[in-house]
């Protein structure tokens, strides 16, 4: 299993007056090469769950292993390194830096790895070509269309060739054709062997044939079918 969560709890502001129990007793396993959709309303804990799977923060308690590594035992620095090697993120609003060009945005994860400019350009060029936005590589991210932004964000998530792709509400701000296009790209990535976890309350995502499993999340718990 690429993702193994057992009895995972996440409490924000533990011990303070504003303490929040975001996740309670989460048990979830995701096999390598599969696509899982985490479905639930806003505030249900999907993004927190994605944050734990994405090694952004460790669980408060429970066992969380991503790619065979126990997150609770990893200091913050190693969580970052593990995240860099294992995970590609696609965000709700794509989170590209608007003043940087598409090429610069896509290659951002490579800078702290010490990858030289020529190799960065080469790797990004292949991805941008594959996602059909190579003609926009020198455009500032703030000046391209929503569909192009989406593809640039996917290219950035793939630049390190991570085995796990996490997408947080990726279709929330896209129209139906762009949402379909996004899922088509995800399906291709799954076919190429990537493991994909998508949080969404969009039926178009949950009902996509490439999605192997839909996991309902509400009030910080996984719904039992």
């Amino acid at each position, binding site marked *: 299993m690429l993702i193994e969560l057992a009895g995972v709890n996440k409490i924000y502001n533990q011990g303070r007056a504003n303490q929040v129990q975001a996740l309670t007793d989460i048990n979830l396993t995701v096999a390598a090469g599969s696509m899982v959709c985490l479905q639930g309303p806003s505030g249900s804990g999907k993004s927190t769950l994605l944050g734990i799977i994405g090694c952004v923060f460790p669980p408060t308690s429970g066992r969380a292993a991503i790619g065979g590594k126990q997150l609770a035992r990893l200091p913050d620095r190693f969580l970052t390194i593990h995240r860099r090697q294992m995970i590609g993120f696609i965000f709700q609003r794509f989170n590209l830096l608007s003043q940087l060009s598409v090429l610069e945005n896509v290659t951002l994860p490579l800078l*702290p790895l010490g990858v030289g400019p020529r190799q960065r350009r080469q790797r990004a060029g292949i991805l941008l070509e594959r996602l059909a936005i190579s003609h926009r590589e020198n455009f500032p991210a703030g000046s391209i269309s929503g569909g192009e932004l989406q593809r640039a964000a996917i290219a950035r998530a793939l630049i390190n060739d991570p085995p796990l792709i996490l997408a947080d509400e990726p279709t929330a701000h896209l129209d139906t054709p762009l949402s379909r296009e996004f899922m088509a790209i995800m399906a291709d990535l799954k076919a190429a062997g990537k493991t994909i976890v998508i949080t969404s309350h969009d039926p178009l995502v949950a009902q996509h044939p490439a999605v192997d499993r839909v996991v309902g999340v509400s009030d910080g718990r996984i719904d039992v079918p």
Partner: protein
Amino acid sequence: MNSALEKQLNLLDYALASLWRRRLKNSSVLVVFTAVIFLVASFHLVTTALTETAGAVLRQTPEIVIQKMSAGRQEAIPVAYGEQLSRLFGIKKIVPRVWGYYFDEPFQANYTVLGVDPAAMPMGEHLVQTLLAGAWPGSAANQAVVGGAIRELLALSVAPPTVEDDFPDHSLFALHRPDRSLKLLSTVGVFRDETALLTADLIAMSLADARDLFQIPADLATDLCVYVHNPAEITNLARKIAAILPDTRVLTRPQIEQTYRVVFGWRSGFAAVCLLAALAAFVILAWDKASGLSPEERREIAILKILGWETADLLLVRCWEALIVALLAFVAGCTLAWLHVVFFEAALFRPVLVGWSVIHPPFALTPRIEVKDLLLLFVLTVLPYLAATVIPTWRGAVVPAEDALNG
């Protein structure tokens, strides 16, 4: 290439691009910081050059000066006092000197008039080295050497006039004796610019001419200059002289040097406090600027962190940015300061540092730039800026990565 080095180059490249993206904010910091460094560096260059100039000029002055005091006031000293000191071992020569201040009403300027006898002075033959042009007054009467400022003020040329010179003779000028009669003097030399600090307002002439101008009898002088064989004995000899001549004030060269140091020290200290206050204000401003992360900057940090950038990487980028701004400001500030001192004669600091004379000495200072001075300036300016920006930068770099998940 080594990947660690490549990583540093990548981060440096990102820092440069980031500076360019926020060019308005960064250029305003750069301009203010350059101005602060320019002021501090200019001031340092000027005070260093002035102190050195004063020291160089004072090296030509007598080791001991004796002045007669009466009821706390200085008055003319009998030349015969010198004979009482002849039995003191260690004295090379005692030379009378006549000097005084002369107020030139038409020009509203004070001159310092000095009467010496170079032939009687042990270093007399070296006095010519202080001149830019001409010669020291010889045995002929009514000749003078003037400072550059006086030459300019009175539009004097240096005698002797040649046959080609137009009439009237531009080397001549006149001063009033106490009885209002005129004493005509011919300019035979001009002091070098390097000595301008002390000679700009000086008119030097023979002892007899000075006595004639001030109407001082031949057996009196303003003070007596004592030259000694061993400079290490100056203080001892001064003490002995004071004991032999209890109605005199005995001034030593180290005391005069100390007075100059105190004068410059007080002035430079005062200005330094003002400049350091400006520097402190800038550092507080830099701290404030670096502390206030805009929502856009906060978002950028969160995105970079979630993309796998470590806190150390972000800190390094911000440090590169601060270092680039600081180094640019340092180089620009120091260069402008040098230009200000050398080509604009330190126009901003002249009133602060050389304000005791009506005729301000013109500056011809060529500041010596030494590595230790540059290091001192670097420590005084760049390090406080880096310190003021690194701590807020660290606070900014610890923005949690999950912020990027929230929109």
